[in-house]
């Protein structure tokens, strides 16, 4: 089933002005198909068609008047076929299809043929038209999935998503290194004579990924062959024992792409702390007891260190923003033809961080929306550029509160993390060519 456009509502930004409804009513004539409602306590909520993948309104229609267009993703309604039974409204749990007496029939959002009028009408940024998934699908769906089915990743792990997207893009003319950690642990390289990918892939040591890939690349360069050479490493293999070889390869400008998938610790071996583990985190080696309360120091911020290595390209990414990731992957691959490219992808770990498996993407999103994770790219020529600047960040507690590894923290500790997040953002802004580029 293809991915499709949707409209996202950010309640924190909504002030209930109703401009979206006015715009919809004007665009469509008659009643608005988007509805903003007070949620009590001053907040706002929404009723709007979600253009469901498996829409119950369609299943409930006896007349064939509703159907899901698998090209556009829109759940379409035909006035011609509708018999006004309104059974569709029983199927919808979102208030997305509603009988309007003035019109005399049901109405629903049709995304205005791809340019929804409500979104630009909102001056508060509370509505976003998310078309990235659909675009990505269009671009990448036909590419071969080079990753095996039946992996043994933990439920909710976003690494599989990341690996599939990455492998699809880089294709078979590539060599991939997966140093010890969750990525080979889920079967990426294979077990006992079985492979995990339809491309050349190997286990380097935890310590030497960048160096081994440099050797691979140099030999192909010597033979005049353009091979894409990529590391899919964890944070241990990048910020800790892997750092020396990473640093050396970056300094030498080895023409490789190093992707660090940062789950803030040694999750594959039982959730021990790494140099990337943030302050306050419970891990199995920074436990919470009567004397110690989780990790006592801040994590090492590797992407910032990589800026000092003369890399051709450095960027951070989040799987909640896959379009941003793909844009950076393209740039990184191009940069890896002339020098060292580094991508740092944040990978919240449901198992090790203790949050429900279904919440991974929401956790990723909140990391970004709270500025705990910043999305940016850096080149020596253009400096640092925020690719998803968050001007009105959520309070950090919105993010920390979701994560079990922080549940012992009090306000003082959360404030400390908030302060270090604020410092980091300010510090990164200093790398912008023009400070206004952060806007």
């Amino acid at each position, binding site marked *: 089933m293809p991915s499709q456009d949707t409209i996202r509502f950010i309640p924190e930004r909504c002030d209930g002005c109703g401009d979206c409804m006015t715009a919809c009513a004007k665009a469509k004539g008659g009643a608005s198909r988007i509805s903003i409602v007070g949620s009590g306590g001053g907040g706002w909520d929404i009723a709007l068609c979600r253009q469901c993948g498996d829409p119950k309104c369609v299943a409930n229609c006896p007349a064939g008047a509703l159907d899901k267009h698998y090209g556009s993703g829109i759940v379409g309604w035909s006035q011609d076929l509708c018999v006004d039974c309104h059974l569709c409204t029983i199927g919808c749990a979102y208030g997305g299809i509603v009988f309007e007496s003035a019109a005399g029939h049901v109405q629903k959002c049709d995304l205005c043929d791809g340019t929804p009028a409500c979104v630009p009408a909102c001056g508060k940024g509370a509505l976003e038209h998310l078309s990235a998934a659909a675009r990505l699908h269009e671009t990448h769906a036909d590419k071969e999935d080079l990753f095996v089915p039946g992996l043994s990743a933990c439920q909710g792990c976003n690494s599989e998503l990341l690996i599939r997207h990455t492998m699809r893009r880089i294709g*078979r*003319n*590539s*060599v991939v290194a997966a140093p010890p950690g969750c990525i*080979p642990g889920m079967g990426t*390289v*294979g*077990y*006992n*004579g*079985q*492979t*995990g*990918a*339809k*491309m*050349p*892939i*190997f*286990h*380097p*040591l935890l*310590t*030497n990924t*960048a*160096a*081994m*890939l*440099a*050797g*691979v*690349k*140099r*030999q*192909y*360069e*010597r*033979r005049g062959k353009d*091979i894409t050479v990529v590391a899919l490493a964890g944070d241990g293999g990048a910020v800790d024992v892997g750092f*020396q*070889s990473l*640093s*050396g*390869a970056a*300094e*030498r400008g080895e023409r490789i792409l190093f992707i660090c998938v940062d789950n803030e610790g040694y999750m594959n071996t039982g959730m021990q702390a790494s140099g990337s583990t943030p302050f306050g985190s419970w891990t199995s080696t920074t436990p919470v007891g009567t004397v110690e309360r989780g990790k006592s120091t801040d994590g090492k911020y590797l992407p910032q260190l990589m800026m000092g290595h003369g890399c051709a390209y450095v960027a951070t990414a989040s799987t909640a923003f896959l379009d941003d990731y793909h844009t950076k992957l393209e740039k990184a691959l191009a940069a890896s033809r002339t020098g060292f490219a580094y991508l740092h992808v944040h990978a919240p770990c449901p198992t090790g961080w203790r949050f429900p498996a279904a919440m991974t993407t929401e956790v990723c999103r909140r990391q970004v929306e709270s500025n705990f994770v910043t999305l940016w790219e850096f080149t020596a020529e253009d400096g640092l550029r925020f690719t998803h600047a968050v001007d009105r960040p959520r309070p950090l507690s919105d993010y920390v509160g979701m994560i079990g590894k922080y549940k012992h923290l009090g306000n003082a500790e959360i404030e400390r993390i908030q302060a270090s997040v604020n410092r980091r953002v300010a510090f990164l802004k200093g790398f912008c060519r023009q400070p206004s580029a952060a806007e």
Partner: protein
Amino acid sequence: MNQHVNSSRMIVCDGNEAAARAVVLARPDVVSVFPITPQSSLVESLAQFVADGALGAELINAEGEHSVLSALQGACLAGARTYTATSGPGLAFMFEPYVRTPGLRLPMVVSLVTRDMLSPQCVWGGQQDAMTVRECGWIQIYCEDVQEVLDTVVMAFKLAEHKDVLLPVNVCHDGNYLSYGVSRVELPAAELVDQFLGQPEVNWHIALDPERPMSVDPLTGGTGPGGAASFVGYRKSQVRGMAAALEVFSDIHAEWGERFGRHWAPLVEEYRLEDADIAIITIGSMTGAGKDAVDAARDCGQKVGLIKVKTYRPFPREAMIAALGKVKAAGIVDRSVSFAWDCGPLHQDVMTALFASPLRLPLVGFIGGLAGADITATHFERVIAETTRAAGGNVPSSPVWLNEHD
């Protein structure tokens, strides 16, 4: 480089340069380097050869020995003939990828410019570094002089890449005495060496190559289906490759002798052993002084011979037993220590070889030349005297430390 292509020529150089010149002749694809005393001038020479265009290899100036060997592993998996050199602490730092190389069956050649291990802090020769890694699955070869260094480094590529062997090779030459010892050597003609070595084919069994996609080194072993059998299969074939190296290396030496006129003993060299009562057993550059001492003793009517160990891993058990069968006692001179046995490692290997044969004879252990100390003819006179006494039944219970009072 102004080397004549079709004919050999004489040059004067030290052992480090000789090794570097051998590497030029072997035409590796990728050379990765990091300096360390007493190896540094070797990699400096390589870098210069690359800079001058004499060596058309990719040169990776890695940030440490760990990455040096790792980069070579990657290159080798992509089909490259590879080389590097290290020493002492550098070898220790390289250890993690080092122990992995034989299991991956990567046919690299790495010179060990031997050095004593810290601590006490020291920067001088001694074979403790190489001896420490003698059980890692690398083939280990020890050279006696500068010419042998040059010839052996070339031959080592042919040994490593042989399909019955397919293992990495350490060519060891002693720090200080061979690294810096200058001598007149014959440099073989490049074209002849090309004919001798042939085209490298180093990753036919395992490759990181989009034209031959495969998983390299997936997780193997455990109690899952076929895990144990699979792992045992790999290990056994690795042991077989090691055992095959003795015969393959002998053949390579024979061919070398035919092509270039220098006939080195591939495994152990027997020197004036035919009618000897006792033998001294040597390894590495000390052999020269040992042979001088044997000659001097012979001049005095003592029936003394010498057994030089060239191939140390795999240990040439049959050759050693054959040589020992000719004498009544032997004195073994180690340039390092086996801490477990209160003797030298070579001593320990000779004991093990003897036990596997019906032969029984007294062995005297000597430890000398640590941390750059010289083992002179005078030291060997003492070795001969103590070994002669042992042949008469007076065997010391612990090793004789030759430089103890130097």
